[in-house]
């Protein structure tokens, strides 16, 4: 039984990693083939860096992720504080339900629903092309918000309710008590929420696919368009770079502090399926 379970575990990890290893290996393939390895070369990496269109989408994706993470972190933290102190049980549970919708709903429905609204609003106000960077940003903020709120709320619940009272007792106004005492307590949750929002935004394809206009491409959308045609190992090179960037980030955060790495891990752990 012991050996059987070890063999099973080994096979599972083989299953999980085989495609990734193959991807890495063939990104260094000399030839265009993605099934026969004919020799080592950096050809596809060079081609990738000459591909300005793809590099532009990388920049777009980063800009979008930073904006979406920033806005959703601020708004989500404030929302969590408000929800935590909400006195009406009904309002609170109603808000909880609404917050859960983007996490439970399939991405395709979230994407379609926002697209329909944007298109309708566009017709109403007479825009020819109603989908753009702004609609994409709105969509990203919307699906990031619940994850931020869900990271901050438990921190608020864990916090000793007398902490803000103690701060006020010792001379703080309610507003300063929040900044000086509550926010430092919430910070781990806020940071985790922000990292989650950032990675979710980076990774999202489905919702972006429906809510962006032709003028603004993100990297996942670029990959989608590339895979429509025959794929060169150039895309493998791109995937390899992304993979190692993320792996490095993971390692750094693992070395610098446990809380950050936990944040990254739980970001992925709780990340809902993009797909």
């Amino acid at each position: 039984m012991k050996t059987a379970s070890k063999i099973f575990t080994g096979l599972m990890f083989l299953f999980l990693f085989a495609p990734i290893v193959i991807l890495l290996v063939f990104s260094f393939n000399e030839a265009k083939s993605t099934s026969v390895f004919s020799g080592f070369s950096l050809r596809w990496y060079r081609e990738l860096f000459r591909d300005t269109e793809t590099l532009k989408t990388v920049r777009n994706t980063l800009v979008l992720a930073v904006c979406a993470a920033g806005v959703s972190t601020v708004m989500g933290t404030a929302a969590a504080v408000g929800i935590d102190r909400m006195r009406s049980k009904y309002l609170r549970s109603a808000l909880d339900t609404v917050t859960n919708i983007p996490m439970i709903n399939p991405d395709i429905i979230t994407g379609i629903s926002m697209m329909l609204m944007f298109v309708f609003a566009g017709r109403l106000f007479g825009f020819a092309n109603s989908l753009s960077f702004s609609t994409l940003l709105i969509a990203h903020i919307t699906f990031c918000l619940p994850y931020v709120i869900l990271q901050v709320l438990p921190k608020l619940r864990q916090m000793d309710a007398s902490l803000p009272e103690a701060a006020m007792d010792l001379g703080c106004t309610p507003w300063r008590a929040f900044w000086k005492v509550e926010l430092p307590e919430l910070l781990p949750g806020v940071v985790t929420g922000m990292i989650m929002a950032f990675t979710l935004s980076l990774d999202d394809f489905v919702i972006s696919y429906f809510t962006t206009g032709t003028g603004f491409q993100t990297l996942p959308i670029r990959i989608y368009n590339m895979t429509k045609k025959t794929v060169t190992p150039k895309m493998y090179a791109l995937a390899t770079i992304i993979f190692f960037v993320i792996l490095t980030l993971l390692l750094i955060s693992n070395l610098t502090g446990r809380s950050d790495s936990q944040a990254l891990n739980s970001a992925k752990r709780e990340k809902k399926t993009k797909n």
Partner: protein
Amino acid sequence: MDKIIELKNITKSFDGEVVLDNISLDIYDNEFITLLGPSGCGKTTTLRLIGGFETPDAGDILFMGRRINDLPPHKRNVNTVFQRYALFPHLNVFENIAFPLRERKTPKAELEQRVNEMLSLVALKGFEHRSVSSLSGGQQQRVAIARALVGKPRVLLLDEPLAALDLKLRKDMQQELKNIQKATGITFVFVTHDQEEALSMSDTIVVISEGRIQQIGSSQDVYNEPKNAFVADFIGESNIVDGVMLQDKLVSFSGHTFPCVDGGFGPSEAVDVVVRPEDVDIVALDKGQLTGVVTSVTFMGVHYEVIVDIGGFKWMIQTTDYVGVDERIGLYIEPDAIHIMKKSEYSGLYGDYASFSNEFDELSDAESEGAE
């Protein structure tokens, strides 16, 4: 002594449930006053009203003669030591204590000097840079006290500050708190459900039950002269029996007439009679004013706790003499050991030891602490 805080006809309810019912209380400068009562009696709410965390539904709170009902906590010259300390986990010991001073932008030199004074007052020199989570319960307690005192409040509010400590530490801290209060001359308003703690520390005890003040007095007053059956039962052990006041200084109960020292009741007025267990002497059968049969004897260390059935009513007696179970004994009570109280709503609720057992007592104690 000057009145520093006055509560006038305070009423407060939460969700329609009255927690404080028309409470009036004067707190004097430089006194150690304890609000004592079972959990849920309204003592913590009283404290939170003074601290500014709640506002009264009716009535006024005066601070040195000025109405402060609407004054937010940070503008009150009153500080609180919270039940579970509420130390700021992201700040070290020094910064926790310096918190109120930084809030007031105290100059660096003065700030350091005052924090250091506080550190030596609570005997925590050398712990400045420790994180508060690395401290023991007793040390955290000291930081909380130092932090509340560093801003030189006129009044310090303490909400069951010792509840989380073990017995030995609690005893030490009681003494230390008393010393700090004397050294600083600050008024302490102390909330507890532990009557021993209240008796040993307070200048004044305020006994509260069901949102109403039952008695205000010194430790001796509330122990020796309880106003009603609730106070008599809650503070110390008491035998409370029905009696009839025959005339001044003569009372009849348990089928016998006793000389006593109280007076001022109507002729043949029904009263509650309190006799403390340590005030009942065991004597020979023929010398006793009362006789009874021993139903149980428990060795308590310093004394025996004896339950005696006297005409169907179970008395508790504390004695150093050993008596056997089922033995018939005589009992004698000195006149000044008999305390007479007017009948109240609490009459008949307390004072019979028929169902008494130590385990049961501890059990309900633990329960009330858990509920706090």
